[in-house]
């Protein structure tokens, strides 16, 4: 029995833990590298004679520089405001779109779903010029609204597609029963379907939050003036001078900028995985 047990344990290690460890190292390495670079003095960064993964003299100089010489806290506030509001706005729209396309049967519904997803595939480099005209016409330049209203152009298609798949996985009988019992369509959605769709909505929300938090091009051209910069735009503007990159401070900003996204993931990781797999495999 003991032999069988250890053989099973060995198999488990080989099939599960080893690939998992490899995958974890693969995914976490960029963060480790960012952390090491952010803590190394410039001279060590340039000294190729040393082991690049070891820290001989850890320093917080780059972090101090980041807080003293850039407006990183203001950039973080800007990023948070824009991302949170755009995410809430996009999720609200996406839930309605996803519900309609996933639960209601109407002519052209499938085609509409495909078209919405295709809208996500249009690259921002193509869209930013026409969007700039819209932003200018509504006089939104260099305000939070410029990004709050443009981020949904790529957040809504993706979140709608994800939620559409998720809504389709929820048993139709539950909703039918509610309707038979006298609930309106809105009540059936609000009281029956949405509570069951929480994992899917959370995963869509996390996706929206991450995409919005890291977005660069729209933040650069529609906002980006004075202290109205987001973290991705602000650190690049302040920490890259001509062909000299201040790697230590850039990595420090990268580490600090990842924290909110990491927190968002860690809180909702179970629901996120459940939502993602249901939406993608059964939808």
């Amino acid at each position, binding site marked *: 029995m003991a032999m069988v047990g250890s053989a099973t344990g060995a198999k488990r290690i080989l099939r599960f833990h080893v690939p998992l460890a490899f995958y974890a190292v693969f995914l976490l390495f960029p963060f480790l590298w960012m952390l090491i670079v952010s803590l190394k003095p410039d001279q060590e960064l340039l000294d*190729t004679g040393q082991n690049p993964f070891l820290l001989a003299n850890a320093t917080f100089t780059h972090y101090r520089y980041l807080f003293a010489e850039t407006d990183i806290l203001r950039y973080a506030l800007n990023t948070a405001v824009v991302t949170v509001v755009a995410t809430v706005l996009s999720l609200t729209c996406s839930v309605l779109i996803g519900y309609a396309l996933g639960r209601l049967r109407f002519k052209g519904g499938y085609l509409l779903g495909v078209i919405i997803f295709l809208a996500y595939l249009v690259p921002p480099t193509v869209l930013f010029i026409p969007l700039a005209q819209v932003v200018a016409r509504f006089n939104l330049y260099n305000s939070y609204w410029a990004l709050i209203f443009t981020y949904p152009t790529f957040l809504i298609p993706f979140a709608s597609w994800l939620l559409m798949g998720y809504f389709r996985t929820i048993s139709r009988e539950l909703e039918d029963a509610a309707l038979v019992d006298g609930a309106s369509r809105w009540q059936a959605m609000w009281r029956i379907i949405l509570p069951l769709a929480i994992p899917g909505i959370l995963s869509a929300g996390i996706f929206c939050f991450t995409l919005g938090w890291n977005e660069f091009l729209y933040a650069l051209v529609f906002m980006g003036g004075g202290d109205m910069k987001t973290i991705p735009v602000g650190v*690049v503007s302040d920490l890259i001078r001509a062909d000299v990159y201040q790697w230590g401070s850039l990595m420090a900003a990268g580490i600090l900028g990842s924290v909110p996204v990491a927190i968002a993931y860690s809180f909702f990781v179970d629901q996120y995985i459940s939502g993602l797999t249901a939406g993608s495999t059964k939808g």
Partner: protein
Amino acid sequence: MVDERMTNPVQDLIAEATRLRYSRRTVIRRAAALGLSAPALGLVLSGTGRQPVAAKAPSVQLGGELNILAGSYFVPEAQTFFDQQTKEWGDQNNVTVSTDYVNWPDIQPKVASAVESGAGPDIVELRDTWTYLYYEQMVDLNDLAASVGGAGGNFYGWAENTVAVDGQYYSIPVGTSSAAFAYRQSYFEQAGATEFPKTWEELFAVGKELKAMGKPIGQALGHSTGDPPNFAYSYMWAHGAMEVEEDGKTIAINKPEFVSALETLITGWKDAFDETGLSWDDSANNRAFLSDQISATINGSSIYIAAQNAAAGAETDTDYEVVVDPADINHAGFPEGPAGRFNVLGSWSYGIMKYSENQEAARAFLEWWLAPEQFEPWLEAQKGYIIPALPAYAENPIFTTDPKLAPYLDVVNYGRNKGYAGPANQKAARASSEYIITDLIAKAIQNNDAQGAVDEAVRLLERVYGR
């Protein structure tokens, strides 16, 4: 009423201008040709009833807001200094001036979206031939160019060519960061070179020794706007080839001597260069040089200044050692080929957008800032990183105090615009932004096929310039 203190050349020019009905611009040009000083020019303009050149802030009451878009400064102190200048002018004129500094590759998307949407910064900093792309949405600045250029001895040809669209100024050239070879003197001496090689072939020969020492030459050939095209265009011109002839139409890149030079380069790349350079961008060679991996590279003076800063930092903190001693860094102009010595040069410039609601203030600011009283201290704050567009400033001690920086200024004597021998127009700007020449060099090396790379470049250039 002409001032009694006027000298004869002033009186002569007033008479000439009155007789021949000179425009204000022509008066300024003639004054520059006669070598008149700025005060004398002021007297002439007054004497002919034209508005004098304003060196001080105008007395007209301005107001409102003014936004400037510029690239992040390599020298942080110069950026602070510019902020002080804008504040000083803003306070004097009741104008709230703000400047947005962005990473260099991000300037163009911002300008493009501003042009398309008709909203954004009032004043924009443009690089190289960008004025050709946006001039229809920019304000005519011929008067200002004439007064600034006239007072400073007329713009260098390379500056005028990149900025003036068919002779018309929509932005005012201010100069640029130029490129030279930064090299480690001690390594070159060890390799048997007491001075920097004069020709490309000599450089490849010395590079072979350097690579054997473990310190190859480093050259970036990826898609970035500085070092890769600096090498690619210069090497092409030095071997008799060019995108187009002087007519701006006839593709002139498929020259046997250039194909032969490419074959030499393919061999030289293996023997003398760090071969990973094919994927380097503008920053990679700085890093390789400052971490002692390479012995020479084409760059602006940023490597030297960064090494000086690192050395100054190390003096205050004994835990660290300087990897590359700035005393061991020297600079040299580009080597020459059979067709001569060449370098790429195009001016940065400042222009006013047509959509600006405060054009008057924008013009007044540029007029004030570009006057020698303001502009020369700004140039000095750049520590020699920016070479001027006007010969008058080349005499400034900032360019002569440190002889190691002399090769950067010397580029004005052999630099050419992108598009040479043709004009630096929209087509040249497009060919440059598509990296046709840089890719030609990189593909020749990568595929070990000089003629194939040239044929491909011909096809792409025909698409840009037309058959």
